[in-house]
């Protein structure tokens, strides 16, 4: 028998009797909620995107609940196509639907014909299989002009130690189909009819290049996640995940190129003589270890997480994410958010290829595969609206920086910033309604 019983017996008892006597209106969100958000995303001089999301979670009875997640986005703008700048105007044949596009001298070539709409739907059903075990199954569908995805997933979790420990396992399988506009190009083949308008070194010419239409290219993705969450104290919760993902099939980006540039000692070192479509391996295995801590101190809740990622393409990354929930009077709140990210370069990443050197089996100049650091800074302001509803506004800034260009590029490439920082501004409006 314990003498030092916690006073919280009284608090719990008050809640239990209130539920019994019906004097307690079910906590907002007990029956479910509808969460929605609108995101306006704008990269400086690049891609602009508007995305709307609706998330519905509904508790059907004591055991079962379902969730439905709908996404619609529309994007437009320009994205680097992987080629390097030149002192001359460059012209490209885009696989993305344009007859061709040009880049002024001295600028990073951007494929400006990006314009797409995406629609995705995810659904899942969860069931309390037994007092301590919960299972769920779900499906995923998404469509874009040149990409479709179909998937199923399932998970199971079990509680231990008076529900202080939860262990979960989830698995997912997705089959994606890439149908590039103009067909999937042959990897490392020359871009067709690419004329370098002035100067030496004519392109390898026609031929090769654009694959001719045909059925879309497939990609299979399987994921498994093992997670453990543990209550440490009345104010602290930790979670740890290990995830492994294997993808195989068509993993290239059909719209990305590499410039083949003249070597030092040539007539115009650093100027492009040809453009080749990129080539990535046909499989990729990714793994990640993730840990998250939630800590409540004097009214403020801190959420800090760390993820270490590694794969068989040579990429290693760290991501540290910190969000503070600061309550303000009358149910309002402020959430500042900071994230730091750092990744290494993929083994087959090449800023450019050099004429006369052996072409490697795999090569890509996609800026997303190079080494960089990124910072996110954001702030969200939330306020209650009516019974059980919340409105939120947030502004965020994302920036990728860090030297990525190889030392000593040939010729004129020395004078260009081959990877100008990517900067993004984001605004979000969110509305949560408790059912």
């Amino acid at each position, binding site marked *: *028998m*314990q*003498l*030092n*019983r*916690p*006073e919280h*017996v*009284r608090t*719990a*008892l*008050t809640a*239990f*009797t209130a*539920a*019994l*006597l*019906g*004097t307690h209106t079910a906590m907002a969100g007990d029956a479910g909620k509808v969460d929605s958000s609108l995101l306006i995303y704008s990269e400086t001089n690049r891609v602009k995107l508007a995305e709307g999301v609706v998330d519905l979670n509904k508790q059907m*009875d*004591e*055991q079962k609940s379902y969730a439905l997640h709908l996404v619609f986005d529309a994007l437009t703008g320009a994205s680097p196509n992987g080629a390097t700048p030149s002192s001359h105007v460059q012209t490209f044949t885009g696989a993305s639907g344009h007859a061709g596009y040009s880049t002024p001298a001295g600028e990073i070539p951007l494929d400006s014909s990006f314009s797409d709409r995406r629609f995705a739907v995810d659904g899942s059903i969860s069931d*309390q299989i037994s007092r301590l075990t919960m299972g769920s199954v779900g499906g995923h569908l998404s469509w874009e002009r040149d990409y479709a995805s179909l998937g199923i997933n399932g998970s199971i979790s079990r509680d231990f130690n008076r529900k202080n420990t939860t262990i979960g396992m989830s698995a997912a399988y997705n089959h994606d189909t890439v149908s590039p506009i103009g067909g999937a190009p042959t990897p490392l083949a020359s871009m067709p009819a690419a004329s370098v308008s002035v100067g030496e070194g004519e392109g390898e010419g026609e031929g090769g290049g654009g694959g001719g239409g045909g059925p879309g290219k497939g990609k299979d993705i399987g994921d498994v996640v093992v997670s453990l969450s543990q209550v440490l104290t009345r104010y602290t919760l930790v979670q740890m995940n290990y995830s492994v993902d294997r993808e195989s099939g068509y993993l290239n980006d059909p719209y990305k190129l590499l410039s083949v540039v003249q070597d030092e000692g040539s007539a115009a070192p650093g100027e492009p003589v040809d453009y080749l479509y990129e080539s990535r391996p046909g499989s990729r295995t990714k793994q990640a270890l993730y840990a998250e801590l939630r800590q409540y101190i004097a009214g403020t809740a801190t959420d800090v997480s760390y993820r270490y990622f590694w794969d068989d393409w040579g990429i290693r990354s760290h991501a540290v994410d910190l969000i503070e929930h600061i309550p303000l009077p009358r149910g309002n709140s402020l959430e500042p958010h900071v994230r730091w990210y750092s990744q290494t370069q993929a083994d087959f990443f090449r800023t450019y290829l050099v004429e006369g050197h052996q072409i490697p089996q795999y090569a890509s100049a996609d800026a997303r595969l190079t080494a960089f650091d990124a910072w996110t800074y954001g702030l969200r302001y939330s306020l209650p609206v009516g019974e059980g509803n919340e409105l939120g506004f947030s502004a965020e800034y994302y920036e990728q920086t860090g030297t990525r260009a190889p030392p000593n590029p040939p010729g004129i490439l020395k004078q260009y910033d081959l990877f100008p920082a990517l900067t993004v501004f984001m605004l979000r409006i969110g509305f949560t309604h408790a059912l």
Partner: protein
Amino acid sequence: MPSSSTAPFTIGTRGGHVVATYSAMASPCEILIRTADAGEARRLASLAHRETLRIEHKFSRYRDDGVVHTINHSNGGPVAVDDETSRLLRYAGQCFELSEGRFDITSGVLRRAWTFDGRETTPDRALIESLRANVGWDRVEFDGASIRLPRGMEIDLGGIGKEYAADRVADLLTAEAGHGVMVNLGGDIRVTADGEHRWTIGIEDPARDRSALGQLDLAAGGVASSGDARRFCIVNGVRLGHILDPRTGWPVADAPRSVTVVADTCTAAGFLSTLAMLHGTDAEAFLAAQDVVHHCVR
């Protein structure tokens, strides 16, 4: 437990309040209402009377039209329950966890091993052990919509029923009357706020019936008592009360003669007073830690 479906209620007055009395749940029941309108008084008294009987009949172990009887005779099969029963069962489960197993509505079967007539007795240990095999809320399957008791197990809502009824009747009358009332079901009391009025409640001396030990002065809240003044037995010269610890099958040693607790509701007060008794020698310390108005008599 005799039912009293045919006995009427009687109306009187006491110090500015109308008092309605009736008999239900094997106890004298009394409702105090501040009203000058006799018709209104009768209407409210009738509501109180009917609601008390409804709860008594629905959750009685003896009446075969009650849900508890159905559950106790389900022979291991699942029984679908309605919203009110579901809430009571869920509350019982929460109390089980909150009390770490001391408060257990499946512990009623243990009474078959004990006779609390005030006399010396030698308990049958083998019987107690075999009955303990049928005790334990954690063996019950309850998902909110239906309950499945393993064969041999029984539930008894006697430990929650009267306090629940006091709260239900009080809430019902308060909503109907538009002002506060006092409901006293055999010592399980709930008072609801009636303007500036403060209700006066006497605490009974367990040793001497009807004589007040003290008085409580409440604007709103619930009062419940646990005690073993009348029902006890003697084992090896030691006096043991009738409140059994479900975890051992034996009465709690050194429990106070009576415990009275004041809380926001009669149900909460009842839980705390029972749990205090189950702490035996530590009853006072337990109640002190809960920071509630209480009164212990040893």
